[in-house]
């Protein structure tokens, strides 16, 4: 959430700083910016992307990364510290904490994915409608977005979870509704910016109707920025979902889920530091990497 707002607030400040930021192709660089970038390796993109690929592997093929059982503990190995056999130690039931984190990835990622999907689909549809239909549609949608922004996304998720049963689906939808506003505002800004560009006007003059111009020129060019928001928002959603999972509003135990794993470890804070610290580290790492990766994607796709 925070990152999207940051972009928005600064871009909307009146005064000499307003207006689209001066693009990279201003002064005397005749070589297209994209070609120039292609020759240089973006190390930040690579260094954040590779570990993310690994974590994504956790979600799809958990069995490859651990041979331990995430659900059934070994009674003789209760609350053991990290070792070569149990990288993250074991919990109060003798379950391998690393295995629980690895197997919990898909649960956390699926819920976060649902949230991002809801935010993306509804948000970009609203933003696109707001930017293209204009007239009375625009102010109506913008007021609706104001309302969504006025209710903290955390509370939106809570009211959805309260009204339906607590669980991953209602949690994902709730968190997703909270991110609609960010997607809608970015889509609207991007579409409006691109529609004001010369080549779009040229496409119109060439006889393209509104629909074909939107489909062939506006949407593909706006997609890049929205894609990078998608990556960043995925991290934000993971954070929100693990926080709400920690409070007990997500998947019920014994399902391994990142927030829930930490909530379980909370009871043994004094005796088994690894039960909270190490799974949390994985969350931090994932969210930080997604943030960096998202910003790199944004830089790569800006034109």
């Amino acid at each position: 959430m925070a990152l999207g707002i940051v972009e928005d607030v600064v871009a909307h400040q009146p005064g000499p700083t307003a207006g689209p930021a001066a693009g990279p192709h201003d002064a005397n660089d005749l070589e297209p910016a994209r070609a120039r970038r292609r020759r240089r390796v973006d190390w930040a993109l690579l260094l954040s992307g590779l570990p993310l690929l690994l974590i994504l592997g956790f979600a799809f093929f958990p069995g490859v990364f651990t041979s331990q059982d995430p659900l059934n503990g070994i009674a003789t190995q209760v609350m053991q510290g990290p070792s070569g056999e149990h990288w993250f130690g074991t919990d109060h039931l003798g379950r391998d904490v690393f295995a629980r984190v690895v197997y919990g990835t898909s649960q956390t990622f699926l819920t976060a994915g649902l949230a991002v999907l809801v935010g993306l689909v509804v948000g970009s549809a609203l933003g696109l409608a707001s930017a293209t239909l204009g007239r009375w549609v625009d102010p109506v949608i913008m007021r609706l977005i104001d309302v969504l922004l006025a209710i903290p996304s955390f509370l939106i998720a809570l009211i959805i979870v309260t009204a339906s049963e607590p669980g991953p689906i209602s949690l994902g939808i709730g968190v997703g509704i909270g991110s609609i506003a960010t997607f809608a505002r970015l889509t609207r800004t991007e579409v409006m910016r691109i529609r004001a560009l010369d080549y779009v006007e040229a496409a119109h003059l060439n006889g393209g109707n509104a629909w074909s111009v939107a489909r062939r020129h506006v949407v593909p060019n706006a997609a890049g920025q929205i894609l990078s928001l998608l990556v960043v928002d995925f991290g934000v959603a993971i954070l929100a979902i693990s926080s709400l999972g920690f409070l007990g509003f997500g998947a019920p135990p014994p399902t391994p889920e990142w927030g829930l794993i930490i909530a379980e470890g909370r009871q043994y804070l004094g005796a088994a530091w690894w039960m909270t610290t190490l799974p949390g580290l994985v969350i931090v790492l994932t969210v930080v990497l997604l943030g960096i990766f998202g910003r790199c994607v944004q830089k790569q796709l800006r034109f």
Partner: protein
Amino acid sequence: MARYALGRVGQALIVIWLAYTVVFLSVQLLPSDPVTIFLSADAAPDPAVVAAMQAQYGYDQPLIVQYLGQLAGLFVGDFGYALSAGQTVVERIGGVIGSTLELAGWAFVFAVVLSFVLVSVASLVKVRWVRAVLEALPPLFSSVPVFWVGLIALQVLSFQLGVMSIFPDGSFLSLTVPVVLLGAYVSAPIAQVLFKAIEQTYAQPFVDVLRAKGASETRIFFAHILKNSVAPAFTVMAMAVGALLAGSVITETVFSRSGLGQIVLQGVTAQDIPLVQGLVLITATAFVVFNLIVDLLHPLLDPRVLKAHPAAAGRTR
């Protein structure tokens, strides 16, 4: 100015009204009414009890009557009854809000101070890596789950060093630690916006003129750059209300403090829709009021707001 102020107040009222309407409508979309959902948490609710409670809290009346009745209630500060507490929502929340305000208020002060210190040091220090580290801090703060850092703090300070009690005991540390953790989380967007605004201000020609006139970098920063960059930061500060609330709920749970966190847990586990709904509306109102205050102060900070586009000024949010 009067016209701008009136417009902003009108917009704020509309947003509060819409927020109420959206919340009301989404509750209507549920398969049944709040009373039935609340009672269904028990195994098999007695239909007579359901009907009696529906009648008592007015959920048996026509929708339009409920809608207008609850709307009228908002104007006199009546947010309905918390089903799980046997109190009005306002009483239930009023009973514990002091503790949350103490935490959130100090955290906000700390967040503002922290972001200004970070940005000032980063802008004035000439060492490149120090600056890079300072600039990387806010994104890090916003990526670290508050509940996790809270648990680590408890672990180190309570269990290993034994300097802090696990439960709040009114000592200095038992308030300071949650305040610092929550404040760091809330400072992230404020600092990020400040960094960006300052970078844009430094790019303006007047800075070169000041340098050519021989002004020191410190003077340029504090007397000119900062002054021209704070306006966006104020906007984000008003938006921090949401992060403060969410963060408070989680921080309170971790440190076993009383406050809104308790209410949220109670409301959600008991499926007490009026209580959560009341909490949402009160927060939304607080959010809108804070933003209104900032919008009304904005022209004083930056008179260009009025000149540029009086009608579109609302978009700055």
